[in-house]
C-alpha cells in the first residue's frame, strides 16, 4: 500500500477541521471540528507507525493516549458549553463577548 494517499487524506481532514472551527457558530459544532483534527493526527501516527515498523509501537501507544485525552477534553468542553448556555441562554460563540474590549 502506498503511503501518500493516506497522508493527503489526513491533511484534508485537518484542514476541514480548521474550516469548521472558523466557520461554525454553535460551540458544540466547534468541538466536533476539533475531533476531526484529532482524528487526522491519529491517522498520521498509525500510518507512520506501520510504515516505519517501529519495534516499540510508539505510534499506536501515542494514538491510544490521544484518544484518552480527547475523551477528557470533550467532557470538560461540553461542561463549559453547558455553563455558558446556562448563564447566557445561547450556545453561539459570537455572542460570548463579555471580555471583549
Amino acid at each position, binding site marked *: 500500500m502506498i503511503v501518500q494517499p493516506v497522508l493527503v487524506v489526513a491533511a*484534508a481532514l485537518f484542514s476541514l477541521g480548521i*474550516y469548521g472551527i472558523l466557520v461554525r457558530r454553535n460551540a458544540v459544532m466547534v468541538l466536533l*471540528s476539533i*475531533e476531526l483534527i484529532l482524528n487526522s493526527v491519529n491517522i498520521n501516527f498509525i500510518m507512520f507507525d506501520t510504515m516505519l515498523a517501529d519495534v516499540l*509501537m510508539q505510534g*499506536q501507544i501515542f494514538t491510544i*493516549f490521544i*484518544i484518552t485525552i*480527547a475523551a477528557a477534553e470533550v467532557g470538560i468542553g461540553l461542561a463549559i458549553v453547558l*455553563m455558558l448556555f446556562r448563564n447566557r441562554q445561547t450556545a453561539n460563540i459570537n455572542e460570548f463577548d463579555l471580555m471583549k474590549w
Partner: protein
Amino acid sequence: MEIFEIVTYFVLLLLVSTAVRVVTTSNVIHAAISLVFTLALTSVLFLLLSTEFVALVLVLVYIGAVIVLFLFGIMITRAPLGKNAELDNDKNKKLGAAIAGSIFFLFSYILVNGFEGEVVITSGSSTELLGEILLSRFVFPFELVSFVLLAALIGGITLARKDEALIDEEQV
C-alpha cells in the same frame, strides 16, 4: 493485493466525503451522525493497516462514548434540530475556506514530497505485544493519563452541576 488497494482507496474517498459533510451540513444531528461515519471509516483504515487494537479502542471510546456525549450536549443546549441557516457564520466562510485550503495544500505538498514508500502489511495480531509495551516501558504515562481522566471527571461534574450557594444568594 489488487482488491486490497481498491478497498483502501474507496475507504479514503468515503472518509473525505463524510468529513466534508460534518463541517458543511446545516443540520446539527446530521453533523454528529456524519462524524460517527468518519470515525467508523477511520477504524476500518486502522484495521487495513493491521493495528486492530487501536481500531477497537476508537470504536469503543469515540463511537460509544464521545458521540453520545455530543448528542447529549446538542440536546441540552437546545440547538435547533432540523435545518438551521444560523449555524454557520457566513461572514467567515470565504476566509475560512482560504485558510483551510492553503493549510491543505501546504501540508500535502510537504507530506507528499517528504515521505514515500510502501507499507508492508504483516499478518498476525500485534495486540499482545502492544499490551506488554504499554505496561512496561510506557507505564508511567499510562498511569498519568488515568489521573488526567479522573481530574477531567471531577472537573466536569463541578463545572456542570448547579451551584446551590449561588442560587440561594440570587433568591435572597
